[in-house]
């Protein structure tokens, strides 16, 4: 990728006595090095992408430390990498976006957890839950329970978060259980500071290699009969060992309060929101001094029954604050209180909503009920007024509007190479009728938004082709599966292509070959243009994805017989190719490679290049598209076929006309879609393409002045 993390890499070098300032996820990255991690892997995805991005770019420094960094092809390969810690005293860390990544990784995780680990194994997951999330809403907690892995959910304070990384490794080693460190979106992006320590280069590392493999030990295999023994060990030895470590090292935090006949048990990650909502109820001060005792679970699995019981005994009532559903923690606590016959009343999901992010306001609604039941007072009434005030304000605002405000979902970037394909698909369907579109994960999922609104299902990353296998045999028409190159390598090649070929399916697959996993931050993949291709390209602005043919050769190798490669901006050709694929006599898998490099990456390359050329006074041609306001018919069909942010509308300058006209605003990168659409869809003739020649050669200028004179002579006013 063209983004540079040099500044972040510098902060990784901080040592004892320094203070780190920055984002949570980068603090975690630093903490890994302070813990003597030997190998790091993972798969990119918000909100944890930066962990791997920074590590990958910090290769030089990692080599100095002897740390191996691997950008894995998917979460399964990242999880499998942790196998190194089964036999060897190696601390390993992997990262990905959860829940989706954990789903992909779950098979390896089960087989890792069964034999257990010798070296600490830490899995840093971005819990993509609540506002700003981009995946299905589920909890990672279930995986920790089913595979018996420890689950850390630290208080979103950089000091605590980084401490939990080190403790996580030790906990893993003390219990032989892999440990998951769960970070919510806002915690990954929280800006704070913490006192750093020196980085520790691992005892065994890429600089200090092991001589021999460890001796054969059947117990380390996830294979019967020992799997039955493993299953027993989890309950008999590992979980008890983990609980012992958690208590002895005070991983969970106990905050006393003057109402000690009440208590709140909260996931560490929700601590700040809880404190703020306690403040709203006048039950805590600005420094977190709570009047109600708090048990903050920085470790949410396993729970320590003694610890929880001791906290609850002698209290009238305890509230469990646990985000998401089902309420695993609350259920476990209920069970252990009942077994111990502790009569403390238990509240949780009876006062708090089952689903969704626990924002301060949401927490406060539940807390207000809790407080008014056990601590009635003026402060509670105050809070109640505040909450009803919010509701009334929202209603009043809605009432003040004639119609609801238009949504603003994310969309294709200016000049994105994927937009034109959806234009072509829209046009193609005018000829061949509507088709079933199996969509996928990636930027192209923006095609499900206006103005295209296309896509019938999304079954997972790289799953589109597989997800239509049951549809196409049942339908008169062929089906279309859309996939990005990211999804193709993550999963699609095997789950989709191989299966379709093996079963001789009649299907159409369109692969966006933009060269990167763009939606996660343009990370590089095996089909990313090589460095030398960038170097050799004379026009640094041009797409260079065609220089890497890995996708094509992989498909040929598998036996794909019908394959067409089309430059995405050629809308007419793309439409013809799609129509061809849907009407062709060939009944097997038809693959269309839609080729066009991610515009973000192109722009990051082109801007400094052009700036440099201009500085040197060299000839540069800048392209911009535009609309003639007096020719535009104000029907906006062009926008319904594009949706480019720079193709917008403005008041009609013609006093006779009332509807706004289309206009192209600054920021247009001259991708050419406007012109291509105008031709392919026979739109109105109002589009023009302007080529501005900067620093023209002298003969150009001379010729131009003659030509200009004649043209002007022909022009009326």
């Amino acid at each position, binding site marked *: 990728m063209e983004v540079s993390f040099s500044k972040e890499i510098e902060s990784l070098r901080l040592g004892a006595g320094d203070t780190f300032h920055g984002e949570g996820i980068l603090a975690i990255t630093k903490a890994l090095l302070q813990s003597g991690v030997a190998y790091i892997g993972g798969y990119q995805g*918000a909100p944890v992408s930066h962990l791997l991005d920074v590590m990958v770019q910090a290769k030089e420094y990692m080599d100095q430390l002897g740390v191996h960094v691997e950008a894995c092809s998917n979460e399964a390969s990242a999880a499998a990498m942790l196998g190194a810690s089964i036999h060897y005293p190696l601390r390993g860390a992997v990262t990905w976006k959860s829940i989706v990544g954990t789903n992909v990784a779950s098979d390896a995780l089960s087989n890792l957890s069964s034999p257990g680990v010798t070296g600490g194994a830490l899995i840093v997951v971005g819990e993509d839950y609540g506002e700003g999330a981009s995946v299905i809403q589920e909890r990672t907690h279930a995986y920790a329970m089913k595979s018996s892995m420890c689950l850390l959910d630290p208080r979103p304070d950089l000091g605590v978060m980084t401490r939990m990384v080190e403790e996580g490794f030790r906990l893993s080693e003390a219990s032989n259980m892999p440990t998951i460190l769960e970070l919510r979106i806002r915690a990954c992006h929280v800006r704070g500071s913490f006192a750093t320590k020196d980085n520790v280069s691992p005892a065994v590392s890429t600089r200090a290699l092991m001589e021999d493999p460890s001796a054969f030990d059947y117990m380390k295999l996830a294979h019967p009969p020992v799997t039955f023994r493993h299953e027993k060990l989890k309950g008999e030895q590992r979980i008890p060992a983990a609980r012992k470590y958690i208590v002895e090292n005070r991983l969970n935090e106990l905050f006393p309060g003057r109402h000690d006949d009440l208590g709140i048990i909260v996931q560490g990650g929700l601590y700040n929101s809880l404190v703020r909502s306690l403040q709203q109820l006048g039950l805590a001060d600005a*420094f977190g001094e709570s009047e109600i005792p708090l048990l903050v679970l920085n470790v949410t699995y396993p729970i320590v029954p003694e610890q929880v019981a001791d906290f609850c005994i002698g209290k009238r009532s305890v509230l469990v604050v646990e985000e998401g559903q089902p309420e695993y923690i609350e259920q476990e606590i209920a069970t252990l209180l009942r077994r111990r016959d502790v009569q403390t009343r238990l509240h949780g999901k009876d006062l708090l909503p089952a689903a969704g992010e626990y924002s301060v306001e949401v927490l406060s609604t539940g807390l207000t009920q809790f407080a008014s039941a056990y601590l009635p007072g003026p402060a509670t009434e105050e809070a109640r007024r505040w909450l009803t005030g919010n509701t009334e*304000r929202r209603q009043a605002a809605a009432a003040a509007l004639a119609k609801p405000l238009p949504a603003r979902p994310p969309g294709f970037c200016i000049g994105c190479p994927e937009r034109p394909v959806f234009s072509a698909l829209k046009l193609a369907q005018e000829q061949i009728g509507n088709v079933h579109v199996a969509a996928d994960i990636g930027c192209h999922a923006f095609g499900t938004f206006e103005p295209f609104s296309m896509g019938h299902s999304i079954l997972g990353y790289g799953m589109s082709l597989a997800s239509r296998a049951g549809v196409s045999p049942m339908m008169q028409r062929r089906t279309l599966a859309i996939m990005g190159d990211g999804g193709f390598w993550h999963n699609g090649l095997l789950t989709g292509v191989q299966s379709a070929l093996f079963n001789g399916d009649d299907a159409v697959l369109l692969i966006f070959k933009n060269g990167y996993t763009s939606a996660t931050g343009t990370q590089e993949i095996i089909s990313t243009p090589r460095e030398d291709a960038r170097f050799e390209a004379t026009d640094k602005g041009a797409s260079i994805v065609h220089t890497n043919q890995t996708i094509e050769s992989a498909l040929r190798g598998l036996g794909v017989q019908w394959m067409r490669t089309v430059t995405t901006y050629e809308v007419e050709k793309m439409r013809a190719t799609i129509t061809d694929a849907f009407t062709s006599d060939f*009944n097997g898998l038809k693959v269309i490679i839609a080729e066009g490099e991610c515009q973000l990456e192109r722009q990051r390359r082109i801007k400094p290049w052009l700036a440099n050329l201009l500085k040197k006074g060299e000839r540069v041609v800048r392209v911009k598209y535009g609309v003639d306001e007096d020719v535009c*018919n104000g029907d906006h069909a062009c*926008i319904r076929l594009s949706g480019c942010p720079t193709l917008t*509308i403005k008041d009609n300058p013609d006093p*006779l006309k009332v509807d706004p006209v289309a206009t192209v605003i600054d920021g247009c990168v001259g991708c050419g879609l406007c012109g291509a659409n105008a031709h392919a869809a026979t739109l109105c003739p109002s589009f023009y*393409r302007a080529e501005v020649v900067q620093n*023209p050669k002298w003969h150009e200028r001379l010729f131009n002045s003659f030509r200009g004179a004649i043209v002007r002579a022909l022009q009326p006013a």
Partner: protein
Amino acid sequence: MKQKPISLLICALGGEGGGVLTEWLVDIARHAGYPAQATSIPGVAQRTGATTYYIEVFPATLAELAGRRPVFSLNPVPGALDAMISSELLETARQVGNGLPSPERTLVITSSARTLTTQERMQMADGRADDADLLKLVRQFSRAHQVFDMAAIAKEAGTVVSAVMLGAIAGSGLFPFKREDYEAVVKAGGKGAEASLRGFARAFEIVAQGKAQSDFVAQVLAPQLDPAGTLAPQASPPHHAAHFPASVHEMFGLGYARLLEYQGRDYAELYVQRLQQVLAAEREADPAEARGHATTREMARWLALWMAFDDIVRVADLKSRASRWSRVKGEVKLGDADLLKLYDHFKPGVPEFAALLPPAFAGRLVAWDRKRVSDGRQPWALPLKVGTHSVLGMLSLRTLASLKWLRVRGSRYAVEQQMIEKWLQGVVQGTRRDWQLGHEIALCGRLIKGYGVTNERGKENLLHVLDHLAHAADAAAAVRAAREAALADDAGKALDATLVQHGAPPRPVKAVPIRWMRKPKLGETTKAA
């Protein structure tokens, strides 16, 4: 010592530098010695979506706190927000709708600039949210508000909006930082720091002097005078202006000038004569002039626009004017030393050429094209990319523009006049029956616009409405409903529904050649043998 953190919600669009702004603020707090925390939910918002950033600063220095550490919130708390700053007016309104700012507590600083959403841009008519409505929300749900065009300031200063937002925050005195604290951190940014500081300073002054709001309000309340149309040289109302009431003069003047320029005096006279029929009818229907000749006024507009229907000749003329060349130069920000190459995208099809041929020839040509299509081929069309900057390009455009004489002899002219007459009579008779009905039919002129299919669709819709609703019970309401429905979607789903609802038949289904896809062959495999 105030025991509550100061809270600020930042609303921005992806790529506007909200992240940088947040980082700046945290660094500034640190340099000024105050505890602070910020967080965000960028997600995929980097791809032009809306996103927010949230920061809290404790109003006591670390020294004063002597080791005590405040606990900050990671979520903005509705109704407990000290300030909100937003780079886009709709997003400001959205957060108001979410209940975040409150009239008791929140200072709202918002840009008046709009970045239109796709939903607003893609409508067939005008789908834009009304700025006045959005502004009303801001007024109603803020303790104080400051509204100014941050995008414009950023442009002036040659910087990004985040720098402007920082200046606005500093100018508002929300945080206990000195102006130098802010500027120091921006300076440290190095590249582009000068421009950033310029934008910062402008916004700082605007907000500090609190004149932003009044300025903008004044500007909003100012009477919207129509910009001079590029097509409509404000011709002094011709001699017939006398025949029309004053309220019609302006539109009539514009319309008359348009047709004079479009075809010539005779055609403009035809316009006058047509419009007089409407006036006569309206005078009968509304002798007291209670309606102020609204129908004649609207007809002056829509009749002129339809009569000046767009065709090759018209487009070639518009594209080859000197005024157009200089307008484009402005739009592409052409430097003095730069050269401009200007290409126009045309794709005339058979209908465009047939339009200029006498009906007999035209018919044959169109029939040939229809046959092509029914054979499953694309209709014939000639994709052109004309270099308007070149001699040849300009020459060909001027040649086409000189074919006005052919226009009036062409097949399309005949058809258009026929339809115009039909609509005109609809308006005249409608007005005689019921003023409102005539007015609604007149407004249906809005359905006629553009080229090719768009234009065809509009005319068919209008005539269908005329044939089936003009005589319905409560015709006026029916026509209005149908007109609005016709602008809802280009497939005409809403229109058909409305037609049926008012007891009229849906529009006849058109024969559209569809290339049927093969049914996947069951069982047949293509495994390479």
